[in-house]
């Protein structure tokens, strides 16, 4: 469905106000490709009609669907080599050290269909085995959140088709952690048990999630407007323990958004380490 200049301004305003998502001029295609299905399902022949429907929605359901559609990104196992190199050599060994004395908690803030959360669990398990302490994996708790409960349903099922399993996962990991069932790959129960998933809107208070030793919030905040980004990172600082890292997408930064974190570069990955509480 085509979007006119006026409609872009209206939808942009609605999305900014209700979802915290900022759309620059030139992002018209994002609205066209991501919201057309929803507009049609609401029997709208134009984005102007859709805008009016969205304004009149008092249930919040349409708003959630719009946020979901606008923020959903492709996801795959071990996305971004530099980040996973940092995870393997710095972040997870540190978590493993802590796990020797008690539970450690990781938040995957845009969990979608679960690949990031399960990638963490697999790598943690590999490191625990390599140092001869496989049972330490049981001290890892990953909380995966997403606004889309449908995506989370798929994450919880931990079943992936051939295409999804090929993306980012080595043959070795695939055969170690997954079992083939027809054309579906099913994750083993031990790795699956490391991650818990729950529906969550990043605009809401993080208090209910508890505190974390590591947070991954990748490719979500890029869509949010400045004020909401500042607010989100302030709230993340409130749930991330001092000295622990926040990891963003490869192109994302906290510059000008928060002074609660110290950027730390390791090889080609920047981690934002929570400063000690003042």
């Amino acid at each position: 469905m085509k979007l006119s200049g006026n409609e872009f301004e209206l939808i942009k305003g609605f999305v900014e106000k209700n979802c915290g998502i900022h759309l620059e001029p030139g992002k018209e295609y994002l609205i066209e490709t991501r919201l057309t299905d929803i507009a049609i399902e609401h029997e709208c022949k134009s984005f102007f009609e859709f805008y009016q429907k969205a304004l009149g929605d008092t249930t919040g359901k349409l708003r959630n669907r719009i946020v979901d559609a606008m923020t959903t990104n492709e996801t795959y196992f071990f996305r971004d080599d530099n980040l996973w190199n940092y995870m393997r050599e710095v972040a997870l060994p540190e978590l493993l050290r802590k796990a020797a004395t008690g539970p450690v908690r990781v938040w995957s803030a845009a969990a979608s269909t679960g690949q990031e959360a399960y990638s963490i669990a697999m790598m943690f398990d590999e490191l625990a085995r390599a140092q001869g302490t496989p049972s330490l994996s049981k001290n890892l708790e990953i909380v995966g959140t997403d606004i889309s409960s449908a995506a989370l349903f798929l994450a919880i099922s931990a079943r992936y088709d051939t295409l999804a399993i090929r993306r980012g996962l080595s043959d070795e990991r695939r055969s170690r952690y997954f079992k083939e069932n027809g054309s579906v790959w099913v994750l083993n129960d031990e790795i699956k048990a490391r991650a818990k998933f729950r529906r969550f809107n990043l605009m809401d208070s993080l208090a209910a999630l508890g505190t974390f030793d590591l947070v991954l919030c990748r490719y979500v905040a890029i869509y949010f407007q400045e004020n909401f980004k500042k607010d989100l990172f302030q709230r993340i600082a409130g749930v991330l323990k001092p000295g622990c890292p926040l990891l963003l997408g490869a192109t994302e930064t906290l510059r000008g958004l928060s002074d609660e974190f110290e950027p730390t570069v390791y090889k080609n990955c920047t981690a934002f380490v929570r400063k000690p509480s003042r």
Partner: protein
Amino acid sequence: MRILSIDDSNSIRHAVRKMLEVIGAEFFEGTDGQDGLEVLEKEGPVDLILLDMEMPRLDGMGFLDAVKKDPRWKDIPVIVVSSIAQKERMIRAIQEGAKQYLTKPFTSEQLLTKIVDALHLDGDIE
């Protein structure tokens, strides 16, 4: 969970069959609207129908019309799967009782999240 995919394209039906294995769905297929009705008669009710619009013999609108008039099938949720160019027809399909709409081409994640949503499989997720 029993899902009927009606599409005149062999490759789309094949791809959908593979995608549905992820959620452990039992797959039925129809090559056009008429064939889809015959499959329903033969196999009995399904939990969900994925419906293409442009098909020979009986097209998607004709199939939808027949299904919504039949008390045995009228409550089965239908997801219309078609190309973006057919906006007016898609809206009419929604008005005629189709539950959701999915633009071709689609990924398995897009299809599966629509199905999960349509069948409320995610109802227990807090």
